[in-house]
């Protein structure tokens, strides 16, 4: 009975270590700066060059969300000015 329990525990520990090793390998592989070849890797290369965090789940998790919102405000103001000028010219 004890031997069976010991075997089961060893088996479970072995599975845990294999799983942990697989997870660690995957992590180290990504961490090492791997990039998919060709155009498939262009987003990763771009994120790396511009230091873009692609992990936020929700809008409030994006650190520069305020500046993105201000950017859209500025775009809308510029578009409104363009429309006014066009209208005046017509």
């Amino acid at each position: 009975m004890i031997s069976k329990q010991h075997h089961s525990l060893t088996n479970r520990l072995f599975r845990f270590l294999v799983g942990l090793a697989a997870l660690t390998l995957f992590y180290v592989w990504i961490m090492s700066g791997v990039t998919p070849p060709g155009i498939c890797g262009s987003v990763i290369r771009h994120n790396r060059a511009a230091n873009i965090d692609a992990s936020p789940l929700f809008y409030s998790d994006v650190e520069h969300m305020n500046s993105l919102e201000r950017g859209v405000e500025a775009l809308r103001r510029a578009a409104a000015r363009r429309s006014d000028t066009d209208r005046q010219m017509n």
Partner: protein
Amino acid sequence: MKESINSLWTNEDYWAIWFGFIIIAGSLLGWIPKIPKVGTWTSDPLNAFEVIKDGIVTGNTLLPLLGLLIGLAILTAIGVAFMKTTKVSHYLLGFTAVFILATISYWVANQAEIKYWGLSYAMWGLLVGLLISNTIGTPKWLLAGAKTEMFIKTGLVLMGAEILFAKIVSLGIPGLMVAWIVTPIVVIFMFIFAVKYLKMKNKKLAMIIAAATSVCGVSAAIATAAACRAKKEDLTLGVGMTLIFTVLMMFFMPLGIKFIGMNHILGAAWMGGTIDSTGAVVAAGSMLGPEAEQVAAVVKMIQNVLIGLLAFCVAIYWVTTVDRSPEGPRPNAMEIWYRFPKFVLGFVAASLLFSFVIIPAMHGDVAAVESRFINPITHTLRGWFFCLAFVAIGLESNFRELTAQMEGGKPMILYVVGQTFNLILTLFVAWLAFMVLFPNVV
């Protein structure tokens, strides 16, 4: 089915509201200090625990993190003591371990390269938990601290503070058209497709996948799962699928848009309406240029605001239609109230409080409210509660149950068909809104 006054201190839903509003009140009154976070690191893992001010290391976050562990343990243990579901001493031991695993998940996710790939703490938290539960098995003492529902519901009540209605007008009518017209249509289409055509037995999983695909991925999946009281395995499957497809869409959508020479603003609105998580939307939008990045992120933000309304509608639909026996009478108002997941009310109340009381009281200065009350406290704590929840979900899930949920690949078919429909409809509405009806909006 009756509810007594006792449920106010014995029901988990009410405790989520109490926890959430204690934190919100503490934040508004200035009683809660800035909540510590695990920082970003590149090559030295210890950098994640450094406090950097003006480029100089001024200390570390280990002590504040210990303070956070103690604070959260005490706060949540009060609820656990009243609910009497677990012995408090057992809960405290288990919670400490779950918190350490959550910190590891954050630390793993915050490596710079991992962030470039968009592999968030949600994925790492789930993987850490699944690794333990499916190999050595989650020990009972650890399970005692894995209060998944309590963490999710409290996190969602706190998330309510981030759902600010002032945000929905950021891009005018075109933004609303893409984010608010397409989204409900896709949710309804996917749910009907799953139930009527795919004949999926698991309606909760169908709803989780529909919400994750059409609103905002992981966050919508959590909110919907809690609103319809789905099983942990359903949420794990829904979240896993959305995480994989988000990375794929982040990789290929900007390339496709560039390849066919689509207008960048149209492309940005399209990606904002379809890619599940905001980080991936920002990265994909940025590939098309700064203006596209801004438009894509703001479209996504407007869509994110729908999450509260969605959770509310799903909760109502579930208690009035899905959970009702086919032969039974239509439930009356009191019956609906008894069955309704009350934490959704806390979620909605927090959103209304910040949108219509706190922001007007601060003279409409949304940025000030975000920088003083939301970002340093409620938002960071919401992240911690979600991270704890993902670790707990992993600890409580097993692969055999997950395989049983697959129903011959039906959830995958649902995701692919739903996302294809979402892509087509969003492109059409974005074209109509930004190119035909309001071409001069940006």
